[in-house]
């Protein structure tokens, strides 16, 4: 099909506003009489609160109110499980937990007053690591877990395990008996912060009757409305939550953060209250990617058949599960611990564990970079052990149409092998490389997210418009909606303006997440645009007293039988339609991604330099090539950071990296040449056969780089990030080992 707007590299709707600084982010909003909030946070990983003395803070000029957990109705926050107190009562469970809050005439006074609140603690034994938390006799973080709202299924026995999932089939012990080679390794991956430019911010303005208007940095405003209302114990209709521009999300902007505190501060002082998290708070108390320890034992035959795969994965939840949106409190990556490979016998166990560290949340493809780093490293090591080419090993084992994954997922139009081969071809797989240079491959996949969403389309005196309850988190989702509607209405994309609504004026909207935007909102926008066109034609035909088929539609205008073009607004006036798309029944397809990394290792220092990355995608129809390429480039860079440098180490409960000087994300000098390969003949459930792209390109990168390092210098790094030091030490051990043999 030939498209006019779909597939064109058009700029983002909000691009000019953002680059000229005119976009109004939450922190830019100023209300009359606005006051400023600040939070007092726990300084111990696990402690009983003995007393809180707010008198010094209250006495400071400009301070309007100070609240503690005892001053507000009890309430706990959470996206599913509500286990995080709005303000700690009696106990704190991580360094950074909210203990009290201050509101003042200005930000500086609020911060100074927060420092003046004196909290006396009695320290409790802490479980700082998953090993501590799972040890017999470990301090139990949540003895009352069974009573928490939102806990799925039967409450687990008294332990620090928040959720446990097992799956598999066959008999792995029998499989291992058949294996020619068995490898068992433990992979560890650190916490990763999303690194968005805009920190969490909110502005809450309460009325005397308890209703409130809320602005916040959130990708799911309607779910935020429910979260905040439940935590506050008020009807959700009391909260008018606005859809705001988002300065980067990467999965991290799904929680309400300071909103319940700001609500109580606003009630306490009778004024609107603004709260913006500092980046120190972001690094120490936001919703970073879960750290994990993944132990894999895998057996293969000499011909490459995977006969047994046993996994125990531990994900570190931190002190609360509140930031996890999955009803089962799992991470989606759980289901990818065997990837999309044919395996004869499988046993997977995956645990989410409470520890006295800051709560983990969601980040771009939750759980997947962890799972795929472990799996694709493991498979590569196996291929090398049986002396089979790593691409060939994967080609033999990737599932084909009609087969299910180890977790039981079955897709149609499976293009795993084609995607792998496209990447290998573009990377020149098999061609010779200089000394200390190596190539590594890794494969992942992500489906197009599902669910239902509503889009309104209309025509008024200013022209065509779309209205949505979903923010654009910076990915270009509003532009995608604009493009598919423009294609349908036969107008340029800029002829359609995008409006956002708020939670009291628009049907419930699930919001952004799980790579669902292009699919679900795209299809809803497409349906709304088609419905708008049909409605206009019907009404205009009635107005002209003509049969509908006598009216044409050209470039957003009506073509009358006499050939004249007429502006539909002049004929029928304003019109608005609403369409809901529900993905139920859409074909179950996934989008594969195969990456090949080429690295050079300095054997004297261990430093890894990534020379080139090829990223191949079975991506479906690309709606906007600029946005699509941006997602891949940004994802690869985020994956490269995860591979080589990013981590939030927690020492005695304290996060060691509290600024972007210490928490390193890749800078321009680290970013290699990127070649993107897209598979032709798109298949996808989205508009015009589109799939998803947001959560694919960051996933296989770390494993591809680890595999390339082994290819270059013969050492296997199983703990991310792959620092120069780890490579250097591994080279040293390899050298000593070789020395002993001679």
């Amino acid at each position: 099909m030939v498209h006019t707007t779909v597939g064109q590299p058009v700029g983002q709707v909000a691009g000019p506003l953002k680059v000229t600084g005119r976009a109004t982010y939450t922190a830019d909003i100023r209300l009359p009489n606005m006051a400023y909030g600040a939070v007092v946070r726990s300084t111990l990983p696990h402690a009983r609160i003995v007393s809180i003395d707010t008198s010094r803070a209250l006495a400071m000029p400009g301070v309007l109110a100070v609240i503690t957990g005892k001053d507000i109705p009890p309430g706990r926050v959470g996206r599913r499980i509500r286990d995080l107190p709005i303000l700690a009562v009696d106990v704190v469970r991580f360094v950074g937990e909210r203990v009290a809050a201050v509101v003042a005439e200005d930000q500086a006074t609020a911060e100074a007053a927060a420092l003046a609140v004196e909290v006396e603690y009695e320290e409790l034994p802490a479980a700082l690591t998953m090993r501590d938390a799972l040890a017999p006799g470990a301090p139990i973080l949540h003895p009352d877990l069974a009573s928490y709202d939102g806990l799925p299924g039967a409450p687990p026995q008294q332990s620090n395990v928040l959720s446990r999932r097992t799956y598999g089939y066959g008999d792995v012990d029998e499989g291992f008996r058949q294996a020619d080679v068995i490898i068992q390794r433990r992979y560890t991956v650190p916490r990763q912060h999303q690194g968005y430019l805009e920190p969490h911010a909110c502005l809450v303005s309460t009325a005397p009757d308890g209703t409130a208007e809320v602005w916040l940095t959130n990708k799911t405003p309607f779910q935020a409305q429910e979260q905040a209302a439940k935590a506050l114990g008020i009807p959700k209709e009391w909260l008018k939550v606005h859809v705001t521009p988002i300065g980067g999300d990467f999965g991290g902007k799904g929680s309400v953060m300071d909103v319940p505190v700001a609500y109580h501060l606003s009630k306490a002082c009778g004024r609107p209250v603004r709260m913006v998290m500092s980046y120190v708070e972001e690094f120490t108390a936001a919703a970073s990617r879960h750290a994990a320890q993944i132990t894999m034992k895998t057996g293969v035959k000499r011909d490459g058949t995977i006969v047994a795969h046993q996994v125990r994965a531990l994900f570190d939840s931190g002190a609360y599960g509140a930031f996890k949106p999955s009803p089962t409190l799992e991470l989606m990556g759980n289901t990818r611990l065997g990837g999309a490979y044919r395996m004869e016998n499988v046993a997977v166990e995956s645990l989410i564990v409470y520890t006295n560290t800051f709560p983990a949340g969601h980040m771009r493809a939750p759980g997947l970079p962890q799972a795929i780093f472990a799996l694709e490293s493991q498979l590569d090591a196996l291929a090398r052990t049986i002396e089979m080419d790593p691409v060939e090993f994967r080609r033999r084992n990737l599932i084909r149409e009609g087969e299910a994954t180890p977790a039981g997922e079955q897709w149609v139009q499976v293009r795993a092998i084609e995607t792998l081969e496209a990447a290998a071809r573009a990377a020149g797989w098999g061609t010779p490389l200089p000394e200390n240079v190596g190539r590594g491959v890794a494969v992942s996949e992500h489906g197009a997210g599902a669910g239902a969403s509503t889009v309104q389309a209309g025509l008024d005196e200013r022209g065509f418009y779309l209205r949505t309850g979903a923010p654009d988190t910076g990915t270009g989702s509003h532009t995608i909606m604009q493009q598919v509607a423009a294609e349908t209405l036969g107008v340029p994309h800029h002829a359609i303006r995008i409006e956002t609504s708020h939670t009291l004026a628009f049907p419930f909207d699930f919001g952004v997440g799980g790579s669902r935007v292009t699919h679900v909102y795209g299809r809803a926008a497409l349906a709304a645009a088609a419905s708008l066109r049909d409605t206009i034609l019907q009404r205009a035909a009635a107005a002209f007293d003509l049969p509908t088929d006598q009216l044409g539609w050209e470039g957003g205008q009506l073509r009358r039988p006499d050939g004249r073009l007429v502006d539909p607004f002049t004929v029928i006036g304003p019109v608005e339609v609403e369409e809901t798309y529900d993905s139920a029944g859409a074909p179950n397809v996934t989008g594969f991604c195969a990456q090949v990394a080429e690295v050079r290792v300095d054997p004297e220092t261990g430093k890894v330099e990534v020379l080139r990355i090829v990223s191949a995608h079975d991506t479906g129809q690309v709606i906007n090539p600029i946005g699509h390429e941006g997602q891949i480039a940004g994802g690869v860079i985020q994956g490269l950071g995860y591979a080589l440098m990013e981590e939030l180490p927690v020492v005695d409960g304290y996060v060691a990296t509290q600024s972007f000087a210490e928490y390193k994300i890749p800078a321009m000098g680290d970013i290699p040449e990127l070649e993107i390969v897209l598979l032709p003949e798109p298949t996808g459930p989205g508009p015009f056969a589109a799939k998803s792209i947001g959560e694919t390109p960051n996933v296989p990168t770390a494993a591809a780089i680890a595999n390339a390092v082994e290819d270059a210098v013969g050492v296997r790094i199983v703990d991310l990030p792959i620092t120069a030091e780890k490579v250097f030490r591994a080279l040293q051990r390899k050298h000593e080992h070789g020395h002993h043999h001679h």
Partner: protein
Amino acid sequence: MRSVKYYAATSWGDAVATLAKYPLAKPLAGGSDLLGWIKDDLVGPKEPRWEILVDLRTIEGASGYRYSQGDGLRIGALTPLSTLETAKEIVENYPMLAKAFAAPASPNIRNVGTLGGNINQRPRCWYLRGPEFSCYKKGGDFCFAVTGMNQYHAILDGELCYIVHPSDTAPALLAFDAKAKIVGPRGEKTVPLSEYFIGPRVDVTRETILAHDELMTEIQVPAPQPGVKTAYFKATNRETYDFAIVNVASWLKIKDNLVEDSRIYLSGVAPTPYRATIVEQTIKGKRIDEALARQAADQQMVRARPMSDNAYKVDIAKALIRRALLEAN
């Protein structure tokens, strides 16, 4: 960020007098680190909450450089690094210095960051930079790096406090035997940069000899000499915008293929820029080859006392010393 008073100094004398008058005044140069320091509210018993910033950039003549064949190079302490890294006279006559001036941070930070600021910046230790840690440097009574995570901490000369010197430019200037001009209430003095830095044993709360009301005004680099070979290497976890795990600057005077004289400095390894005197002694009068470079680096690092997490720095320092010696060969 809390608000602070701003004062635009009109002369060095004015700046010194203002600092002398107000114990809570702090000199401001590029501000790329100081403003973050204030924003993070890093205070302690001996690290006050600064209330006044005395801007030195408004002092006439504080920025800029001049070069002459006889006198060498004189650089105003307020000169942005980006000016220096591309300056024709520096690139041509002191290529190693140009490399060092381009090493810190990112181009945008080097546009505001000054040479004086780079030399006088506070260390990067994450305990020093963590508001909740009351460490020796802030007037506390503990070094958290001793029992905590210390992969970026000192392997040489650490005592009490195990910070490493963060400056990329200091080892390069020291290798050239540069001097610092200092102004204070009692007038001006010039001191060799080799006497400028102080370790924790002398005063754990500061890193230089400067008193509260003294300021570095100028750096003086001797004229280039014939027969000198220099090298500069910086090892980082990230290609740009990162502090050194180790860096090495070397200045070797070679005559008839033999090392007549040398100055080799490291930073990122000790609380002050560290002079590799054992390397210098080992190579003196000899012709550098692979074996000698290895021997010199290994012997120097016998002195190293790594902590629980930072033994890697020893190996990196050895690798960079070898490279610096062989490059000068």
